[in-house]
């Protein structure tokens, strides 16, 4: 990495310029699509999940947000040992791919009162993340 040191501060400035300039609020995004594409790319989705969701979520641990393995098809606010917002508990949503797409586009717009703020603005990224989540196997039922 020594060879990177000379341009390092330029790279960092560029990254931060982008972070500052592209800080789009969720409400600035276009209207939600009815549903994501039927076939996303779960391999790309796994990388995106790591980069975009991994700060707060894991497949198998409740962290800032609830664990995600098997989330597709699951009722919202249904992980028993996670403390959800009352808004999400009252939502009666099921995490279908279409609902996940709208959620990821802007959680606060979809379920006002939620504590989740992060969003994914690029439709193809949402589709691939959802495809990855759909590929995760739900945990076996406890005996």
């Amino acid at each position: 990495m020594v060879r990177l040191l000379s341009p390092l501060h330029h790279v960092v400035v560029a990254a931060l310029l982008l972070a500052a300039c592209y800080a789009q609020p969720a409400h600035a995004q276009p209207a939600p699509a009815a549903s994501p594409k039927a076939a996303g790319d779960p391999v790309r989705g796994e990388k995106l999940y790591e980069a975009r969701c991994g700060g707060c979520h894991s497949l198998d641990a409740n962290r800032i947000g609830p664990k995600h393995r098997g989330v597709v098809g699951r009722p919202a606010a249904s992980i028993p040992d996670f403390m959800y917002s009352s808004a999400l508990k009252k939502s009666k949503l099921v995490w279908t791919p279409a609902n996940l797409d709208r959620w990821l586009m802007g959680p606060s717009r979809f379920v006002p009162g939620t504590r989740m703020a992060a969003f994914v603005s690029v439709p193809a990224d949402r589709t691939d993340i959802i495809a990855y989540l759909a590929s995760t196997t739900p945990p076996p039922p406890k005996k």
Partner: protein
Amino acid sequence: MTEPNRRGLLTGMALTTAGLTALAGVATPAFAKKAKSNPAQDANLLNAAIALEHEGIGAYTIALGSGLIPPAAVGLVTSFQGHHKQHRDELAAAIRRLGATPAESKTIEQYAVDLNAGAITGLADIQRLALRLERGAANAYLGLIGPIANSDLHLMLARFAADEATHATVFILDLKEMIPTQAPLYG
């Protein structure tokens, strides 16, 4: 974070801090739209952010206690953890101003379980974990700017996002990952 690089990384950080602050300030007016006041919901959202900061502080505590950080990089890692502590304290103050109580930290042992620290076997594992958390934090702060109704808080959130993006960039370079060609990088 490898030993020979530390001086350069620190130099790079110092050179960019002033620019970041200016950038965050420039970005603020775009977000400063009038929204209906909702202090309770603002506090809920900030409490999710403080939980994220608690976890980041815990992750760096685990890393510093692992014996896997090169001695010359301990100062840098400690400074990153210090930034998260400052974020935590600013968030806690803001939450109290909104009339709510800041969320408390979990135990280090619980963070070790949540972050699967038992699987860490080398410096690269720590760098990958740190990158995941820092990049996620930058995205989370950018995501907060829209839903937070109190525009007085937007500059703070933008500054925190810039701090996390700075941290993430250091780990991206340490891990020799490519900077994505597709913008936006965050949000």
